[in-house]
Structures are given as structure tokens and as C-alpha cells.
């Protein structure tokens, strides 16, 4: 199990876009189970009008995908560290395919991501995963490609 302090040593993301709270299981090179608690105090809920319906509080899909992707990032980078394969560069979301949403999360829910590492090819990692709230699967993604890019390519000229 990895706690939040451990996660911050693995991922470069910081508050409030660090979207993983805790890692429950980690099988290097294979699979991770990680959680993120959704709370009404998050910036995405700022400014919602009092008359907004319950549906307005559905956790944004963009943040849900970010959270799932970060769980995958932890799996990949932790695996690389364990195998003493030096990792350099910035973690980038390269692409994703076949992501379907089948439910919602609301403040008070805990997202539980299960991500599988399918293939690592140099600076590229292929993953697939699911997100659960309790016994309900709310998202499935067929393929996520995460990429490490050297920082110099990201700095504006």
C-alpha cells in the first residue's frame, strides 16, 4: 500500500490536480488498485448555483479520466523504479481509446481504479483499466498510452 506522501514521490502532479489518494494494491509490471475520494470541497464544485440539480454534482469525466490515468502512471513509474530502469522526462497523456462511462460519482463517493500494464516500449506504456464506485463499474478504458517526454520539448522557445 502507498500513502499520499509516497504517491507524491512518484507522480509530479500536485494539489489540486493530484487525483490519487491511496494505492491499495500494486503488483509491479502488472496491476494497480488505487483510490480517490470525491469531496464537495474540490475546486470543480466551486460556484454551482444553489438550485443546481443533483445531476450537476456528477464528478467531471475529465477529472475521472485524469485520476484513472494517474493510477496507471504510478503503476508504470513504480515498476520502472523497482526494476532500476531509470525514468527521465515528464509524464504525458499520449492517447486513449474505447473509454465508456456507465455511471457517475458524487461527493462522498470513492473512485477505485484497477489498471493493468499491458506493454512498455521504451518511453511508452500501454494500459487498460476500470473505475468502480462500490460494486458499480462506472468507467472502462480499452487502451491508455502514457508517454515520457524530455522536458526540453515542453519548454516554450
Amino acid at each position, binding site marked *: 500500500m502507498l500513502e499520499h506522501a509516497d504517491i507524491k514521490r512518484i507522480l*509530479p*502532479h*500536485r*494539489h*489540486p*490536480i*493530484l487525483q490519487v489518494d491511496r494505492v491499495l494494491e500494486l503488483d509491479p509490471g502488472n496491476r494497480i488498485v488505487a483510490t480517490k475520494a470525491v469531496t464537495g470541497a474540490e*475546486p*470543480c*464544485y*466551486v*460556484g*454551482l*448555483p444553489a438550485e*443546481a*440539480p*443533483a*445531476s*450537476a*454534482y*456528477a*464528478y*467531471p*469525466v*475529465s*477529472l475521472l*479520466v*485524469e485520476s484513472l*490515468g494517474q493510477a496507471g502512471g504510478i503503476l508504470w513509474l513504480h515498476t520502472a523504479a523497482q526494476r532500476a530502469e531509470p525514468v527521465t522526462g*515528464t509524464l*504525458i*497523456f*499520449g*492517447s*486513449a*481509446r*474505447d*473509454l*465508456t*462511462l456507465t455511471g457517475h460519482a458524487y461527493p462522498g463517493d470513492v473512485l477505485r481504479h484497477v489498471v493493468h500494464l499491458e506493454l512498455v516500449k521504451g518511453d511508452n506504456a500501454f494500459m487498460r483499466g476500470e473505475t468502480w464506485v462500490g460494486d458499480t463499474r462506472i468507467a472502462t478504458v480499452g487502451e491508455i498510452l502514457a508517454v515520457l517526454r524530455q*522536458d526540453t*520539448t*515542453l*519548454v*516554450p522557445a
Partner: protein
Amino acid sequence: MAASTVRAFAAPLDAVDRIEDRAAGVIEAVKDIVADDPYLGGHYPDFTIYPGVFTIETVYQAARRAIEERGGPGTRAEIAAIASVRFSAPLLPGDVLRATCELTDLDPSRVRVKARCRRGDGRTSAQLTLELLVHKENADA
């Protein structure tokens, strides 16, 4: 977050600054990338990149707005699927994101949104295809 926001659903930020063009089924949404937008302080502390998922948010908010305007009061559009998304160039503070979104009705309750996003320098930053589920909500709920 701007006090003037009219957004009535949870979102990490107001991801569309303006709609510049609208033809039949095609909208062009523009977002200026600025470092002090919500969430960007943590992405990353040393230098800012507009997160890939926020590009998804830009396209979604632009399409949602168009669908809700078209459908009238109580119309809601939510993401049912991200068929594919790929990022090909980073967006940094000072960049202008221009998302050209093509909307196609798959059936009365499903709209496909195909978008190509470009930066000010013309380079494609992302291409994505979303599917939105459209439904009517009790306007006074």
C-alpha cells in the same frame, strides 16, 4: 473561477472562452491558456501545461452548450464515451486553443463529436471523438 460563470454543472474550469464560429453542425471553440486557471497550479508546480483531459473538457463544454441551446430548456448532454483521443503537441500559457468540433446525430439521444484542436501556430494539439448522451431533465428539478 470567474464570478460571471453561468456553468451549472461540476467542471474543473470554464474551458471555453468564446465560440468564434458556428455553421451547421460545426462549432469552433476557443480557450486562452493561462497559468492561473483552476487546477493548473499543480500541473505542474515548476512549469504549466494545459492537461490533456482539459482539452477533452473544452470540446465537451463547447458541444454541450450547442446541444443544450438547440434542445431548449432542460436539455442535458453528458459524455457517454471517449471513442478516441490523442495528444500531439503541448499547450502552454500564452497558447490559444482552437477546437473545431463537428457534431453528428447518431440517434435522437446520441451525438458524436469529432474535434481537431489547434494551437495559435497552427499545429494540431489533439484529435478526439466523443459520444454524448442527450436527455431531458425536469427544468424545475
